[in-house]
């Protein structure tokens, strides 16, 4: 969605009083304690916070991998909590992309096939699949590496394959969970620059969980979580 959406239109992502409780009774663990969050299309949001602050739980809910215990999550105006498991899968398939800390590529499967995977579930014909996957690999600077399996690629390269896989479907939102967590500083910078490019040039909204301030600095907006609540929410340039 373009940045100039009319103001009456709902935000891309709207969380209202979202809570998440794991377990029940005395063992219950409250991971999220009432999150209100709006993310507009085209934004680049970094979610920060100490371990156990609920930032990953929140990302899983935003990514429709998990559902809130209470509260409302609207994605493009659609109440996600009311969707079935398969409907959420369809939503992920068509609108969302994921990049994980551990890359999560299929082993013993070529880079090209890894990138083609989401297209396969969309039912894109084989020739088109090859074309789009090659283009995505090219966009992350991996042309010529199509036939290599994850085992034959460096960590930085694997993460770039994962990014190519996430953006090959041209998603509305890309969710990144500690994308640079397993990489050294130089590789991390490359990955962040790549994400920035996709955000600026293709208008892909990015929501990234990180605990590294250096990486969060690439984002336009930083949301800080403490104990399952939003502690601070700052746009780039603002100061605490």
């Amino acid at each position, binding site marked *: 969605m373009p940045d100039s959406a009319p103001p009456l239109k709902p935000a891309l992502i709207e969380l209202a009083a979202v809570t998440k409780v794991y377990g029940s009774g005395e063992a219950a663990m409250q991971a999220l304690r009432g999150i209100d969050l709006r993310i507009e299309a085209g934004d680049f949001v970094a979610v920060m916070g100490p371990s156990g602050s609920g930032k990953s739980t929140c990302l899983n809910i935003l990514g429709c*991998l998990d559902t809130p215990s209470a509260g409302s999550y609207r994605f493009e105006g659609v109440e996600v909590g009311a969707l079935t498991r*398969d409907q959420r*899968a369809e939503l*992920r398939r068509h609108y969302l992309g994921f990049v*994980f800390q551990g890359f999560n590529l*299929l082993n013993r499967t070529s880079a090209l096939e890894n990138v083609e995977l*989401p297209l*396969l*579930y969309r039912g894109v014909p084989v020739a088109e699949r090859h074309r789009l996957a090659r283009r995505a690999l090219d966009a992350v600077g991996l042309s010529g590496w199509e036939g290599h399996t994850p085992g034959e690629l460096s960590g930085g390269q694997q993460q770039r394959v994962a990014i190519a*896989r996430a953006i090959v479907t041209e998603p509305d939102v890309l969710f990144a969970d500690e994308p640079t967590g397993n990489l050294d500083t130089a590789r991390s910078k490359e990955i962040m620059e790549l994400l920035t490019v996709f955000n600026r040039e293709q208008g892909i909204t990015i929501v990234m969980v990180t605990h590294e301030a250096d990486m969060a600095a690439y984002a336009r907006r930083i949301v800080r979580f403490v104990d399952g609540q939003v502690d601070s929410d700052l746009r780039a340039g603002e100061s605490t």
Partner: protein
Amino acid sequence: MLWNALLLALREIRRNVLRSFLTILGIVIGVAAVIVMVTLGGGATAQVTEQISSLGTNLLMVRPGQRMAFGQMSAAKQFDMADVEAIERHISSVLAVAPASSSPITAVYGNRNWSTSVNGVDNRYFPVRNWSLAKGREFTDSELRAGSSVCILGETVRRELFGSQDSLGAKLRLKKLSCEVIGVLESKGQSTMGSDQDDLVLMPLRAFQRRIAGNRDIGLIQVSVRDGVSTEQVKQKIEEHLRIRRHIAANEDDDFQVLDMKEIAQMLAGTTQVLTALLSAVAAVSLLVGGIGIMNIMLVSVTERTREIGIRLAIGALEREVLLQFLVEAVVLSSFGGLIGIALALGASVLLADLMQIPFVFNPGIVVLAFMFSAAVGVIFGYFPARKAARLDPIEALRHE
């Protein structure tokens, strides 16, 4: 989607060739065993039927005594020539009636001897038994009337006593009787019951009665029935007639037995079929065990590939798509097993049929059935692991190491 699942399955199988092969071994053996059993069983049945018809299916055998336990007969008055003539005269639609009497004996020629049985018969024996001579001649009327010391040998007796020597005209000794060989029967081979049909010596009935048995008894009356006449009806008529002749009261059981070869043929074929079915059922159990093997490996595979399933689910695979992927894999595996089993079974059947000297009867029905069954095993035993995979929680699955 199905095509993609098929390609995925093939790639996954290629990735673990050895494990895949071991997985399907159970199916291979099960399918092969079922097909081999049914094929050989079919061959054996065909052989039984053929042998019985070579014996003459329109043959009735009348023997004194009643069958008690297996192979034992109760003692009863033997038949005599008057019974034979009575059957010949009073029962219509009878083609020929051949009396016979036999006893075990040791045949001696030179320094060789052979335990066999000697049968007193007349020339009606040959058409009734559908048997002809390989060499020599049948008995002459005068030999039959006079009870001359001549004999016709079965192929086994000839081979054991004479080997490569010429037997015609030779004199062999049966008890104290010296007996000239005038002919050799054609070889009939083993009977369905496993006894050697060629292990016998024939001599004129009168000679046998006078010089071997020392009585005028007849132990067996063989009756051949005209074509197109129900053997069942003739059997009933003979039974009624003999009951009168032997003065059997209405409340008494028969003290003789009329065996219908057609009935025996059906009974034997039935027995073979029952045996085949039984063996096939045992073989089918191994198919089932093979299916459990597939389920086991598929469950291991689901655990091993939990992370992969998590990735697929996160990317947007639907439950049914993951289910299909694993189900197709199981079905492809078991179908492969089925195909290999079929190939193995056909090879083994041809070989074993040759070894057991029974005809190879190809049964396309059982081949198709076995294949369908193996595919069905894949569906049934693949479903549970596939469902387990499809219902995984994507977040948990992604965290799985």
